[in-house]
Structure formats: structure tokens, C-alpha cells
């Protein structure tokens, strides 16, 4: 910028050449600016996940060994993933709730795959500040709504992993997943 100012003041008196000269100086500085911005792109992009990280972005889970009432903890994109086989009683409990009164209104149907309502697949990441809620492991505290309980700040989730009590703003996130067979899902 300063280059431009300088030549302006020095060449104003010289007539027609001025505009052409200013134009070239501005163009040169602009090109340098564009080049600098273009260089920044790869410098920033290199911090994005690399190809080997992205290649691990999907997880296959075998459901055959999970009995009703049980849950497993596995990982998806390096974060805990809860896969829970709901009992009929838990499904009934979840369906009983009046959705309109919830902090993050969603039905169990909306959170599961059609016809596979018993399979609740959620991230094991509390929506408050990212702790791992208890309740997936055998004998862990499931909180007063029978789903998951986050020990960090006391968020309680129900059997559809919806937030019912405590500071968390959202239900536990349901990742994109699909059934590859009756007893296997592909997450991601």
C-alpha cells in the first residue's frame, strides 16, 4: 500500500503516465497479496485430518454377541461409541415419554433404524462438555432415567439416550449408520 501512496505523491505532476504507473504498482502489490493468500491455503489445509485418519472414519460393529439389556463400548473416529440392545421394557419406557416436554424433542423411532428399534447406537460423548457418560459397561450407574449418566456434571439420559436432567443441552448424538446384515452395522 505504501508503495502506491509514495509514487502517487511523486508522480502526480507528470500527467498521463501517472495512471498507468499507479495501475502497475497496485497490480504488483495485489499479485503479491493474492500469492500470499494462496500460500496460506495449504498451510492451513495440512492441519485437516490426513488420508490415513480419514480412512479409519468408518467402523464395523458385530451385534451378534450383545444380549438385550447389554451395551458395548467401541470407538468411532477415535471417540467412544455406545451400542445398546434395548429390552422391551426399556423401549416401552422410552415410548411412554411425552416428547414435547423434552429439552431436545425426539422419539425413539427417530433415533433408531426402522424395524430395528431395539438397537440404540449413539456416541458416548456427553453433549455438555464431552465426557464419557457411564451406563454402557456392566454394573455402571445408569442414572435415574435408566439410560446413561455423566459423572462430570450429572447429566442424566433416558433409555433412548435423550437428555432428561442436568446441564447437557442435547441428546447423545446418533451417528450415521446402516445395517450391513441382521447382526452387523457399519457406522460412518
Amino acid at each position, binding site marked *: 500500500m505504501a*508503495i502506491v501512496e*509514495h*509514487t502517487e505523491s*511523486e*508522480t502526480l505532476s507528470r500527467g498521463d503516465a501517472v495512471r498507468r*504507473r499507479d495501475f*502497475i*504498482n497496485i*497490480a*504488483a*502489490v495485489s*499479485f*503479491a497479496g493474492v*500469492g500470499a493468500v*494462496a500460500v496460506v491455503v495449504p498451510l492451513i489445509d495440512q492441519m485437516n485430518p490426513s*488420508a*490415513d485418519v480419514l*480412512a*479409519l472414519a468408518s467402523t464395523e460393529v458385530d451385534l451378534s454377541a450383545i444380549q438385550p439389556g447389554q451395551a458395548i463400548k467401541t470407538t468411532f473416529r477415535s471417540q467412544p461409541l455406545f451400542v445398546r440392545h434395548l429390552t422391551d421394557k426399556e423401549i416401552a419406557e422410552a415410548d411412554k415419554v411425552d416428547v414435547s416436554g423434552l429439552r431436545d424433542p425426539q422419539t425413539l423411532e427417530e433415533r433408531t433404524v426402522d424395524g430395528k428399534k431395539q438397537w440404540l447406537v449413539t456416541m458416548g460423548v456427553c453433549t455438555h462438555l464431552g465426557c464419557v457418560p457411564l451406563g454402557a459397561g456392566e454394573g455402571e450407574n445408569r442414572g435415574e432415567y435408566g439410560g446413561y449418566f455423566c459423572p462430570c456434571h450429572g447429566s442424566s439420559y433416558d433409555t433412548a439416550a435423550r437428555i432428561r436432567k442436568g446441564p447437557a443441552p442435547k441428546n447423545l448424538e446418533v451417528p450415521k449408520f446402516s445395517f450391513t446384515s441382521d447382526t452387523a452395522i457399519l457406522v460412518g
Partner: protein
Amino acid sequence: MVRIGAFLVGLFFAGWLLVSFLVGAVAFVSEPPAKTVEHEFHRDPKHVSFSFDGPLGTFDKAQLQRGFQVYKEVCSACHSLKFVAFRDLQAIGYNEAEVKAIAKQWAIKTPDVDPKTGEMSTRDPVPADFFPKPFANNVAAAAANNNAIPPDLSLMAKARHHGSAYVYSLLTGFQNQPAELLKEFPDAKTPQGLHYNPYFPNLNLAMAPPLTADGQVTYGDGTKATVDQMAQDVAAFLTWTAEPKLENRRRAGLATIFFLLIATGLAYMAYQNIWADKKRAI
């Protein structure tokens, strides 16, 4: 003081270097260094042309796939490719499903821990896996190969001078020892279990000729699988494994240089502009 000290130091170093030179020169004349068999019979790689030659060349994906087939059917039994993952094969024209199938059917399995028992076991590779190594470790590799460890091939084309041509020349360069060699260096007879190849730095290598007969692999695209063709294809494939970003690099280079030429041209004109007044003022 400084200059006197410097003079003495300089005299010492320069003088002693000249003494060393004389000693060396006398030795050089009185007993010239013996010729070595490597020096006399080692040959530089053959001239062979590839689609990726020159600053703007690109890979021929059909050739890379043929080369991959040669690697898979011939080389992979002994040579690892540890820096390449199955997913990378998408870059040479396989689609996701094909890559998955290639990984699943790969003859060597990926080592893993059995999820039920916790014991070491193996599983089918998935696209995210790197090519599994044929030998568990260097000791196993050496034991199975007459004490010679088959090197990893991921970077072979960059780890040798003129690597692409080197791979091709080595694969097609196996031959009997020339009679003149044995006449000149009777002690240099290829030892038992090694194979003479003038493109290999010390002339004798442990690897037996891997490509021996035309039609050793059957190409899906109908290309005739002569030894020469297979050697070229696998050399091209290994060039890709060594430098998979070659095409991106060259494309980015062209754009960058094009931009820089314009920017530098403008910078020159701006420079001349700014100095124009000073020129008049002189």
C-alpha cells in the same frame, strides 16, 4: 600479530596439504589403484521411456494396474510395500469396491489381536490397512531367503539413482557372467546361491530372476505379458508407490510458476516505475 599468526597457520596447512599431495601422487604413480570388478563391469541403467518421463509426464493408469498385478503375483511373496495402503489403489483407477475386494483377497493377512481371546492372530486386510509384510520380521525374512533380506519396495524407485530405469534394468538384466570378467578377475566368480546382474552395484545379488517367462502373468487388458513388458509395468508401478503425488506436484508446479512469472513481471515493471524518477534526477 593476527597477520603473523595467520601467516604461520596458513603456511602449515597449505604446506602440509602439499606434502600430503606429493605423498599421494608418488603412491598413485608407483602403485596405481587396482581396477575393481565393480568398476569395470557395473553398468548404468538402460534407457527406457515411461509415460511419466519429463517435467510434464503423467502416470498411465492401465500400466500401473498391470504393474500392480505383477507386484501382486510375483514380487509380493517376498517384498513388502509397507508405506502403501490398499486405499491408495483408488489413485491408480480401482473403485472402492474393487479395492475392498483386493484387500480382502490379499494372500498375506494383516496381523491383529483376536478380539475374543486376545491372542496374536491375523485377519483379512481392509482398505485402510497398509500392505501386510510377507515376513514377520527381519530375522524371519533372512531365514527364508538365504540370509538376504528382501528390501521394502515402497520407495525403491527413489532410493536408487534413476530408480525407474534401475528397477526395469535389474529385472531384465540377469545374465551369465561374461567370459572376459572371469578372465580378468578369476576370483570374482559369482558365488553359489547368488545371481549375476551387471545393474546391481556389486554385480551379484541374492534374488533369483523373478520374471522368467513371457506370459508369467495374464493381463486383464489383453497386453502381451512379455518379460520386458512386465518389467516396465512393475517399474512404473513402483515409481507410483515411491512418488504417489507426482501428478499433483507437477500440476501445482505449473500453476505456481505461471502465477509467479506474471507476478514477477509486474514486480519488475513496478520496480522500473519507482526508479524512473531517480533516473531522471541523476
